[in-house]
């Protein structure tokens, strides 16, 4: 329903739309920049002024995924024509893809790092949201002695910056053999996200009227059944919102990942900048890595967008 607006209000409305567009452009500019760079030929990546119109190509992604070496001389026509299209794009850039003795393409470190990121972020999100929901339910529905103190204690685990605890954590992890393992990072991220998850979920569960559970109890269900059949579906919005936040935190985490891992369980965030390396950096490859790194969060958030929007405004209005 559109309410009647005065001229002043119309003007303000237009001004706010314009300022929103400006803010949007400001926030989207780096994403556009990275995306454009990820599809540029290497020689156009760092031109001044920047190249806006160019023939997009996939060589940065091929180079991101494979091991390469500099070409000393141009490949013969025979070799060039025999190569698949994606390998030809690498030749065009003056490099060649490293193959093993049997002719198999050697992968770079990126695919495994990307997979590590997925495994660690998804697992830790599931754990943090699951445990957080159950804990929040307990705090929301039962009298817990010293409830406020406990909740503050849970939150306080989030108060120290990661860098402060990283060194002691690293030493402890090394002793118990958790450094550079998936499990190590999963535990770390779960613990890190749990406080956030408990607090957020408590807010959502507090909003669900207790009477639904009372009704389920008199309908003949146990409290556990009521939790799974009534509370969980009702909390779906909150769970989705919490999951997005936890996933983004775990996915983007840099400091712990840098310190705790180096190869086996390394995630994408510390890996991508390591490709800047020495000598002339290939910015298109880094942009391609960054672009791919953006995609899962974008997909995840997009899938849950309806829940998320409801989740953000949840509790703002009393029913």
């Amino acid at each position: 329903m559109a309410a009647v607006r005065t001229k002043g209000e119309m003007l303000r409305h237009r001004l706010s739309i314009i300022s929103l567009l400006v803010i949007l452009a400001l926030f989207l500019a780096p994403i556009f920049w990275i995306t454009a760079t990820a599809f540029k030929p290497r020689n156009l990546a760092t031109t001044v002024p920047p190249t806006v119109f160019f023939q997009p190509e996939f060589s940065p992604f091929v180079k991101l995924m494979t091991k390469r070496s500099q070409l000393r001389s141009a490949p013969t026509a025979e070799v060039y024509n025999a190569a698949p299209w994606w390998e030809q794009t690498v030749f065009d850039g003056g490099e060649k893809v490293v193959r093993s003795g049997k002719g198999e393409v050697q992968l770079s470190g990126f695919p495994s790092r990307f997979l590590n990121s997925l495994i660690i972020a998804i697992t830790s999100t599931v754990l943090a949201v699951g445990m957080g929901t159950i804990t929040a339910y307990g705090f929301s529905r039962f009298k817990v002695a010293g409830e406020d103190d406990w909740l503050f204690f849970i939150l306080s685990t989030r108060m120290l910056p990661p860098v402060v605890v990283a060194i002691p954590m690293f030493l402890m992890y090394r002793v118990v053999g958790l450094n550079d393992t998936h499990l190590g990072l999963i535990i770390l991220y779960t613990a890190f996200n749990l406080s956030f998850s408990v607090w957020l979920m408590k807010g959502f569960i507090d909003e669900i009227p207790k009477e639904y559970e009372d009704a389920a109890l008199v309908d003949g269900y146990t409290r556990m059944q009521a939790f799974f059949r009534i509370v969980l579906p009702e909390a779906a919005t909150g769970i989705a919102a919490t999951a997005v936040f936890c996933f983004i935190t775990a996915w983007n985490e840099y400091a712990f990942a840098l310190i705790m891992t180096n190869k086996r369980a390394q995630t994408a965030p510390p890996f991508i900048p390591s490709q800047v390396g020495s000598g002339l950096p290939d910015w298109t490859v880094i942009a391609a890595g960054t672009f791919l790194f953006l995609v899962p969060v974008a997909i995840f958030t997009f899938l849950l967008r309806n829940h998320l929007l409801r989740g953000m405004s949840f509790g703002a209005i009393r029913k």
Partner: protein
Amino acid sequence: MTQIELRNVNKFFGAVQVIKDVSLTVNDREFVVFLGQSGCGKTTTLRAIAGLETVDSGEILVGGVPVQDTRAEDRDIAFVFQSFALYPHLTVYENMAFPLRAVGTPKAEVDVTVRRVAGVLQISGLLKRRPSALSGGDLQRVAIGRALVRNPKAMLMDEPIGSLDAKLREEMRVELKRLHVEQGSTTIYVTHDQIEAMALADRIVVMHAGVLQQVGTPEEIYTNPVNLFVAQFVGSPVMNVCDVVVGDGVVTLAGAAEGFAMPQALTQQLQAKVTLGIRPEALEVVLEPSAGAIGAEVHLVESLGSHDIVDLRIGQALVRARTRAGLVSGPGLRVYVKADASRAHFFDEAGQSLGIRV
């Protein structure tokens, strides 16, 4: 079905005692209404019977079996909530099937039962809808339907029509009465609305501050209130209560020149100072002086269509009388009032009825 019995039930919330030594028997197939102001402990008592609240001492028996230590899900008692508490993510059909699924009823039987109950409640056309798409009255029917489907030992209702608008409330009241007559389930109904209580109840239980004040049929409660609380809580407009001086065959309101004539047999039993309670319909207003009528000044007239409520000043006291519509033209008029001695109530200083009647 089932008899429900409370024996010396006590319940505390922290230091506050919300149920004080309540003992009560609700007979099989009886419709009992808990009536009282909000915070009087009526809902807590109901929730304790359902198993949603624990009691600190005393026994609750359902069908002769103590259940105070039995979990809510094992008591087989249905509960209709004031907010309806329909599960928003389930359709009407699923909401009504929910209690049946709890006990693993076969699918075909669930379907038959849900459709039969929906038919009784005239909500067959709504089965595929979500609660958010229903009106208040339909929500209420579904909530009752969910309670009825599994044939519970007893039905407990916590102000089930309290959130509906006045007209719908009246309709639903009739429907609830009809349902109770048809289904014959033992029912306890909580309300703060005395009209609802009078209309529905076989017996009314008046509660105040966690204590049972009076248990009786609507007529008993109305005509023989045991104390001032019950007297003033039941009946609309509220019973007039005034301090009076008792003379020989006359009862005078404080500050008034003349008193109401009452039989000597009555006044002889009374002490000099008591509290008189008299309902507005027991006061008769006449425009001309007549025998036994005392003078009064009209203070306010409320026209209600079928009748008028007239506020009268007699001495220092303000009393309300019910008159036929249009009898008294407006404020400031001098009128004359007679009291029906057979409908006068007398209370002691503590507000307890003296039980002295004509």
